[in-house]
């Protein structure tokens, strides 16, 4: 009845850990938000709120040049997107509406023709928008004029005088959509702009660190200190600036930035991408990297994160820091900046700060090289954020602890080679050369370590705009160009030396023998770029994504099996006590539990976020990273390898029956909601996965578990490592000698390790014994000792009624005898030791008081527990309200009134003992009189001894030898320690609580309730109720319910001891009756539990009803507003630029075209200089009336 299917599913998962764990939805169907973020390189906090088809009009640049033919400006058709803090325009026709298909959402993953995923357009932070005006257009269209804060940093002092220099950046956007859609969009924009007013200060600070601000400042205003553009400003940039034509590039960029806005207000036009392909000028390189990779938006989000992180962790140490220190002196040692304290200091700080903010990654060799390279061109803070973007977005998983990203991309690369260069691939296979031994460093250090620096930076320039596919394109081009030589290489060594050679000669002519001087001038590097981006232009982002997806499983499995192998082998010598098979199972379960818990946490969190979002309609900053659902899988780099107490319980519940809670509150409650009325109608189908324990059995919480946990937790870190768990298990299960187990059990209860266990401890031990045996004993039990000859052999399945019961009952007797004997043979404490050895409570409280305390504690516990703790044995359907009353009633100071106040609980254990007797006759009892008599005798004896022993004025303790003797005196106890306790850990096969369906659960609950019943009946307390409620986590995350229940169980037993004189027969009868009853009641109970919980969750559930995205009303209007073709004529409008500069740009095209055609390429900007297509699109926009909002904050 505990939904069988979910267990089967779970079992399958355990058998095949790859199943059900992999390839989450987010992998195959990345969320629209994450696609949106990666297209515009926005932080995770941004979500696509509104989008609309639009036409962008950029006015002619009339400041730097008065070209007449540019009057019409530039027109781009595309989509305008609005997120919480950004307004983005892109010519890439992608849509991120909820209703949009995956293909339109991932349109950017296709060929981008050098434009990068975000295409032409802009990505404005709303805080960079100064003013938005709504223009009335002739043809009933919406048009917005957007004025930005471009140049904000320099217009402060003498506005009037500089007006000519600082032109206001003003663009026009025509919205093409239904009126409603346009209105909606504008409303959203208005709201966003209002919220963004406060961020302008932040924006100023961030762009103040951008070199472009300095570059565009008029000469007389240039302050002495330009913004930090990296170590290159001090130690020179790599390469010969003349050869790199740095000045010319700088002039081109200055012009572009003047015309199209700088840093965050930059508008991407085709020239932008061309300028990047020819290589960035040194001083702007850092800024453009920051812009194209999107790391500037991260910096904008939290500009002080870098400094704050360093300040927060100043003086602290970590493993990562040790590793960083080792590598500081050997990061780009050939660059003078890194031979100086200045450069090394920067490197240290950036790497350290990153290791703090992303402790999961920490530090990985190769990061030092990448960061060192970044630092040549950018400030520390810029490098820090760019490193974050790299690790999270651009090369995810490359530097993680398992480096799965690196390995995965190697597989992807290999399959690309196989696909594009089959002959070379065949050759590699034949010669048994493993490609990744060569290519892995390329990817891992982004070619920085492989090529001469100047060329590696050129690759990086493109990489940051166009994304990871660039690494593959370049890699393939390298192999293609060297194909012939590589075919001659027959082993790794030869292979490597061919490529080493090649890299060393990248600056040489690609065609040294050519007649054509133009062709001769083409360097090998240029050839490489051309091959990479022309020949392999078919390698797109989606190619890579697809192949990553395809290979992911295999790679992760490989890593995981390696990790498992290694982890198991590296476990200490104690692990040898367990078989390899057992170790493997423990390993799987250990990480399985951690993984599942993380998944559930995440789901729960997402659910909360979803609710929150639905509540407040829109715009809620989401804390959950939606793309990250897979966290926790070992292969991805364990985000945690530590098991906390709750996870430990869950772990044990998977291998030991006794660790499973008695009241499975988490069973399907959807079925129980039938009488819940409207409140339950909104129940989600996935509710069960929202329970803190998932689909698995709910773990119990008992003091024994806690003791076990702290015992295994050697270093008291409140968390267990795999090593801890294995060592712990090995000590119980591995030795298989009774003395060892007995000792272990004793030590477990010897709190101060002095070899003595006091009265309290003795009671705890017996509680633990009852706890462990409440689902029946396992292991080899001696047939002969069974009075009825029906003793089970081997493992006792819970469904096996008769023998199970008899053993349980006998074991109950054994435990009673155990207590009695313990007290009988206990040594009195030395008076002087008394204080230290006796818990305070013991010294002061008389048994009665003790009992009272117990009840009070129980109240507290019950308060925490889920109300359905009371559900067991209740056959009244409408008890919800009463039950709540009971909770209150429990708080009354004495025990007796409570008895009367519990009319709702029909279980007889809760009624005065006298009535118990009557009940026995009604309950079907198969117990022999013989047994009952025996039990009665035992009880009597017990009580006599125990009552004396319980006198707190006679403190006492038992020692290990005494304990051992007492245990060995009882055959059943002996067997318990000999085999059934060690056997109760089913490491390999696990337990399947559902194997016998409802029957077994019922029986389990029955046997456990019997013990509760004993306590309750004898002790006149109701604390056993708590036992029933054990583990009954209240709805949602509340796990304290279990705690409450256990406390109750303990007190119940205390009751047994205090009132041990009570007739044993009654106990036995009660046990029997309760077992039967509980069995019958279980189904009902589960249902009621469901109702209870449903009630508790009402508020939450309400929120669910109102679903449906805030944006769904937006419909896509039209298919772009016509307008001019995207390609503007570039070359014609560059009057201010020297002709030599223009040559450079021509070079860009030369590089992007086929090498053979190179020679003929004399003319302007090649194919990209298309016909200016703007045909008066702007004409329809008149600026007659300004309706818009103005924000001059």
């Amino acid at each position, binding site marked *: 009845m505990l939904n069988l299917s979910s267990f089967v599913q779970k079992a399958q998962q355990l058998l095949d850990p790859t199943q059900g764990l992999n390839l989450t939805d987010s992998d195959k169907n990345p969320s629209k938000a994450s696609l949106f973020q990666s297209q515009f390189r926005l932080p995770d906090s941004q979500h696509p709120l509104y989008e609309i088809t639009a036409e962008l009009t950029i006015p002619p640049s009339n400041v730097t040049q008065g070209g007449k033919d540019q009057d019409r400006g530039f027109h781009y058709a595309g989509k305008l997107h609005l997120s919480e803090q950004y307004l983005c325009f892109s010519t890439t026709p992608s849509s991120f509406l909820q209703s949009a298909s995956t293909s339109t959402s991932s349109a950017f993953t296709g060929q981008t023709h050098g434009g990068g995923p975000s295409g032409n357009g802009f990505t404005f932070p709303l805080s960079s928008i100064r003013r938005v005006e709504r223009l009335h257009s002739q043809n009933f269209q919406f048009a917005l004029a957007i004025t930005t804060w471009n140049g904000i940093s320099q217009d402060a002092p003498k506005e009037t005088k500089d007006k000519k220099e600082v032109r206001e950046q003003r663009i026009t956007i025509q919205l093409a959509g239904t009126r409603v859609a346009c209105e909606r969009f504008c409303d959203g924009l208005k709201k966003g702009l209002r919220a963004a007013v406060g961020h302008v200060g932040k924006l100023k600070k961030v762009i103040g660190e951008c070199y472009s601000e300095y570059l565009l400042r008029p000469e007389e205003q240039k302050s002495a200190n330009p913004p930090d553009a990296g170590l290159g400003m001090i130690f020179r940039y790599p390469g010969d600036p003349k050869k790199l034509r740095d000045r010319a590039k700088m002039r081109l960029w200055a012009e572009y930035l003047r015309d199209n806005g700088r840093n965050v207000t930059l508008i991407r036009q085709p020239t932008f991408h061309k300028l990047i392909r020819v290589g960035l000028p040194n001083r702007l390189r850092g800024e453009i990297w920051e812009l194209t990779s999107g790391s500037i938006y991260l910096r904008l989000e939290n500009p002080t994160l870098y400094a704050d992180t360093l300040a927060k962790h100043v003086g602290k140490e970590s493993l990562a820091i040790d590793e960083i220190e080792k590598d500081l002196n050997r990061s780009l040692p050939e660059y003078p900046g890194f031979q100086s304290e200045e450069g090394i200091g920067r490197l240290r700080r950036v790497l350290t700060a990153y290791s703090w903010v992303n402790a999961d990654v920490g530090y*990985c060799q190769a990061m030092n090289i990448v960061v060192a390279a970044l630092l040549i061109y950018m400030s520390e803070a810029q490098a820090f954020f760019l490193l974050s973007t790299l690790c999270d977005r651009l090369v995810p998983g490359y530097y993680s602890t398992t480096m799965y990203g690196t390995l995965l991309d190697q597989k992807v690369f290999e399959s690309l080679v196989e696909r594009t*260069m089959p*002959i070379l691939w065949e050759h590699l296979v034949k010669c048994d050369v493993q490609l990744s031994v060569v290519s*892995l460093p390329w990817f891992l250090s982004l070619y920085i*370590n492989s090529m001469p620096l100047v060329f590696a930076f050129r690759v990086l320039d493109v990489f940051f705009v166009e994304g990871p596919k660039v690494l593959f394109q370049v890699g393939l081009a390298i192999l293609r160009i060297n194909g012939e030589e590589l075919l*001659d290489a027959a*082993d790794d060594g*030869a292979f490597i030396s061919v490529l080493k050679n090649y890299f060393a000669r990248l600056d040489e002519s690609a065609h040294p023998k050519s007649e054509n001087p133009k062709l001769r001038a083409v360097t090998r590097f240029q050839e490489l770029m051309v091959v990479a981006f022309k020949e392999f232009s078919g390698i797109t982002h989606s190619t890579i994504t697809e192949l990553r997806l395809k290979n992911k499983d295999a790679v992760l499995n490989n890593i995981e099996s390696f990790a498992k*192998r290694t982890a198991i082998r*590296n476990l200490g010598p104690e692990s040898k006590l367990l078989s390899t098979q057992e170790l493997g199972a423990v390993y799987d379960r250990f990480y399985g539990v951690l993984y599942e818990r993380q998944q559930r946490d995440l789901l729960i969190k997402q659910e909360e976020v979803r609710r929150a979002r639905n509540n407040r309609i829109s715009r809620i900053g989401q804390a959950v990273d939606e793309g990250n659902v897979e966290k926790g899988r070992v292969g991805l780099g364990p985000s945690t390898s530590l098991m906390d107490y709750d996870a430990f319980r869950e772990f044990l519940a998977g291998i030991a029956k006794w660790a499973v809670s008695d009241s499975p509150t988490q069973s399907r409650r959807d079925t129980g909601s039938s009488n819940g009325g409207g409140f339950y109608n909104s129940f989600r189908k996935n509710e069960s996965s929202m329970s803190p324990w998932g689909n698995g059995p709910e773990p119990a919480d008992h003091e024994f578990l806690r003791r076990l946990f702290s015992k295994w937790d050697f270093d008291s870190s409140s968390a267990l490592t795999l090593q801890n768990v294995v060592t712990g298990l090995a000590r119980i299960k591995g030795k298989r000698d009774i003395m060892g187990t007995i000792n272990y059990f004793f030590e477990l209860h010897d709190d101060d390790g002095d070899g003595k266990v006091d009265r309290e401890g003795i009671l705890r031990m017996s509680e633990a014994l009852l706890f462990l045996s409440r689902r029946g004993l396992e292991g080899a039990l001696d047939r002969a000792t069974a009075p009825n000859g029906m003793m089970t052999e081997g493992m006792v399945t819970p469904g096996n009624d008769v023998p199970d019961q008899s053993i349980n009952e006998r074991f109950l007797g054994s435990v009673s005898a155990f207590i009695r004997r313990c007290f009988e043979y206990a040594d009195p404490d030395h008076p002087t030791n008394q204080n230290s050895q006796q818990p305070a409570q013991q010294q002061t409280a008389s048994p009665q008081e003790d009992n009272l305390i117990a009840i009070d504690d129980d109240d507290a516990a019950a308060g925490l527990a889920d109300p359905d703790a009371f559900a067991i044995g209740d056959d009244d359907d409408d008890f919800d309200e009463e039950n709540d009353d009971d909770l209150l009633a429990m708080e009354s100071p004495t025990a007796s009134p409570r008895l009367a106040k519990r009319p709702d609980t029909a279980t007889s254990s809760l009624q005065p003992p006298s009535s118990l007797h009557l009940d026995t006759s009604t309950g079907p009892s198969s117990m022999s009189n013989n047994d009952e008599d025996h039990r009665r005798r035992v009880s009597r004896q017990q009580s006599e001894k125990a009552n004396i022993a319980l006198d707190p004025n006679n403190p006492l303790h038992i020692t290990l030898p005494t304990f051992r003797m007492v245990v060995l005196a009882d055959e059943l106890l002996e067997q318990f320690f000999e085999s059934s306790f060690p056997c109760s850990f089913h490491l390999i096969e696990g337990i399947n609580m559902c194997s016998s369906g409802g029957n077994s659960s019922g029986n389990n609950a029955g046997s456990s309730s019997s013990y509760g019943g004993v306590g309750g009946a004898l002790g006149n307390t109701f604390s056993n109720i708590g036992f029933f409620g054990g583990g009954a986590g209240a709805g949602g995350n509340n796990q304290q319910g279990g705690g409450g229940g256990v406390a109750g169980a303990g007190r119940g037993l205390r009751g047994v001891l205090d009132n041990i004189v009570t007739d044993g027969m009654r106990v036995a009868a009660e046990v029997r009756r309760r077992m039967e009853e509980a069995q019958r009641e279980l189904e009902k109970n589960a249902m009621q539990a469901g109702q209870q919980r449903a009630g508790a969750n009402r508020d939450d559930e309400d929120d669910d009803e109102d679903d449906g995205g805030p944006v769904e009303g937006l419909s896509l209007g039209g298919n772009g507003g016509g307008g001019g073709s995207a390609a503007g004529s570039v070359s014609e409008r560059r009057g201010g630029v020297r002709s030599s500069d223009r040559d450079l740009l021509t070079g860009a095209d030369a590089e992007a075209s086929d090498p053979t055609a190179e020679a003929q390429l004399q003319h302007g900007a090649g194919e990209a200089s298309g016909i200016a297509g703007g045909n008066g699109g702007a004409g329809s926009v008149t600026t007659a009336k300004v309706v818009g909002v103005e924000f001059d904050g």
Partner: protein
Amino acid sequence: MADTNAPKPSSSVKLVLLGEAAVGKSSLVLRFVNNDFQENKEPTIGAAFLTQKCNLPTRTIKFEIWDTAGQERFASLAPMYYRNAQAALVVYDLTKPTSLIKAKHWVAELQRQASPGIVIALVGNKLDLTSDSTGSAEVSGDGDDNAEDSGDARKISTEEAKTYAEEEGLLFFETSAKTGHNVTEVFTAIANAIPETSLKSARGPGASHAGVSRTEEQRVNLNGPRDPNAKEACAC
């Protein structure tokens, strides 16, 4: 490849270096290959590849040395490098007990996962930091920051490591890459320990062909690339 008509038969041996970070793997290789010692070597990304010949009386062994990165997380890459290796140098640091544990892990990994019959040498490096160092006086001026004041920083006794090595059937050496002590000996011992038989089928399937057939193959391959290359270029 290596079938030069040298007077002595020559064959390649793939050797991989494994061990905890900063035990001196790269330094050992550098000493062996270049007879040099460097303070700041670039960190090994993935693995470094070097070759060096080792002259034995009867034959010449050309070592193809894969020097792997020591950082823990690179461990998952190791199988890529020790694949097909005929010899392995598992290095630990005499002054760092954890490094021997790590070395034992590597030995176990190799024994279970690497090609059968792999020759493994256990090498305790940084002998120059111990009092029984034989050559610490010879080389100076490197200013090794690891140098201990008191002289003996040894934490792992020769006995302990040797016993372990004998149990596992490993070659065992204590070396100093800094002074050069015992370094060549390690490699020579490995060269001697490689069985003749494994040298014949040293490399993968490609290498097992006879000389004639290989040249033929290569000729085919040489012709091959041009046509398909051109075709693909058009397709793109």
